[in-house]
């Protein structure tokens, strides 16, 4: 990363940290806000946060790495999160997902080489009575089958 963008990461992160200073236990809301801003939690954010919150860098890193939500690198333009939990499995969700991943040539968590779409696993969306389910860029979709899941992923430009 160039020093110019580093500067801006640091500025933006400092601002986000300041905006959340009034909260009790502000770190998770801050990390969510950072991910919202950048699409991931940049490595450079960690020392800035450590200083702002009076914690060690290791502590910040420990928190970021604990939670599945926080991405360490940018994702594709679209993010498809497919539910892999039991209720979706009972409705054939795994086979649908396998079919799609094979078609895209991806493993779980990977992004297509053109950067178009990232496919991630998620464990239950609370849509278990309209399974199998997925989230495309935050939009919930239920009652999927192999065909509808595939077009969902393929039609996202």
């Amino acid at each position: 990363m160039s020093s110019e963008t580093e500067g801006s990461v640091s500025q933006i992160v400092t601002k986000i940290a300041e905006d959340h200073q009034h909260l009790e236990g502000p770190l998770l809301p801050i990390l969510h806000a950072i991910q919202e801003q950048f699409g991931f939690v940049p490595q450079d954010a960690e020392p800035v946060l450590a200083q702002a919150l009076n914690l060690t860098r290791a502590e910040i890193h420990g928190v970021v790495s604990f939670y599945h939500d926080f991405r360490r690198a940018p994702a594709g333009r679209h993010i498809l999160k497919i539910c892999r939990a039991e209720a979706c499995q009972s409705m054939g969700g795994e086979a649908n997902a396998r079919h799609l991943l094979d078609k895209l040539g991806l493993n779980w968590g990977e992004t297509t080489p053109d950067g178009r779409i990232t496919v991630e696993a998620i464990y239950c969306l609370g849509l278990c009575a309209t399974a199998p389910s997925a989230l495309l860029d935050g939009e919930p979709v239920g009652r999927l089958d192999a065909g509808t899941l595939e077009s969902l992923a393929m039609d996202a430009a």
Partner: protein
Amino acid sequence: MKIYVPQDMASIAVGANRVAAAIAAEAQSRNIPVTIVRNGSRGLFWLEPLVEVATASGRIGYSCVTPADVPSLFESRFFDGGPHPKCVGHVDQIPYLAKQTRFTFARAGLIDPLSLDDYRHHGGGKGLETALSLGPSGIVAAVKESGLRGRGGAGFPTGIKWETVARAAASQKYIVCNADEGDSGTFADRLIMEADPFMLIEGMVIAGIAVGATKGYIYTRSEYPFAIQVMERAIVIARYAGLLGSEIGGSKYEFDLEVRTGAGAYVCGEETSLLESLEGKRGQVRAKPPLPAIHGLFGKPTVINNTISFASVPFILAEGGKAYADVGYGRSRGTMPVQLAGNIKYGGLFECAFGVTLGELVNDIGGGTASGRAVRAVQAGGPLGAYFPTSLFDTPYDYEEFAKRDGLIGHGGLVVFDDTANMAAMARFAMEFCALESCGKCTPCRIGAVRGAETFDKIAAGVEPEKNKALIRDLCETMKFGSLCALGGFTPYPVLSALNHFPEDFVPAPVRRAAE
């Protein structure tokens, strides 16, 4: 003309927003004035999107509506309740709904979730009124009398928990709502937040008054963006109406609320892990004691309860602890919102008194599988719950009866599998999930679960299956007794129940084929 189109996450997932837009456009082009209310779901998810219209004789429903149905609905004058192939008649007479005992979900789907007028018009706020007149000790007494047990899984008596916090002396106490709802097969917390958020606020305010806490948090999962949005709006509205803040309802009590969002860690549903996470730390489980009631959030006495536990309280205060305790089975008093999920014909939320049997829930109410095949297994109580075979379908829905059969009720989820399910794969998944979500504090959970998944792979490949099955059983013993929390401690439930009730699935694939 009032037309209701649900906007809970499940209804949106099956197209409710497109239906609402199509109705608005069609109404405009036909010059018919309609008011579209975005209600929560009734919880009859197999009917979603369920469009309802208010008529003189009550609400009439049209199920599984798609945008393509909209022109013909208008031709049929559905806005007056006109006949149409998708009409399901009076919604409150649909047997699935009529058979329920809706103490907690009485308003779900009926009202506009963010209308305080609607809320009050349908009985909302009465619990708080009674609570203010009873005062702290009277509230605790009512909750104790109701027999309410925590709906998050462990079933601990809520009144006793509140009493402990009430007695603890501290300058600051907290109320924390566990809305992390990570169990597959569950959506009751989500439905409360999306369909009737003021009820949750009311329950938490009552808890605050009871124990002397002035600050509350609702910790929910990032997978529930709609619930977060509705709760946040409801909090602002409640504050504006004087239901939060200082001098609540004109009293001397003060209480305020904040929503916090998790970050995709199942273990953060465990209460001490949740508190760590709220404090901005890794969600690592704390050793107990000290209990959160004494040493909770930021070290202060804290009531931490499940969403449904808090949401049950307004009814208990309004109608009396006895009215709640009057229904139920054994030591399981009141109602449970059972969540019928997975491969089931009539998937949805069914609130009923404890004591109904598992078979009644799955077959009579749930209609068996969605696929039309035979039911093979039902996982009760989420990913840490046992797989029940149909031979145990006479089990009454009750904490103790489930425990007797090495199972648990948990948060009320039932996930149905048909006869194509591979129970060895499900047992392996339980280990894999535990490994993935382990907080890492204890070895049996962190390492044991990884070993468990590997061992299942060996069994599937036909490598020393008998020896490896014995190894799994050993591993389960170690996890049961050597784990700090129920993630490692209860993963043996799904694993062993699959192994014990479906041994035929644990024969290596080539052998199984030869035997067929």
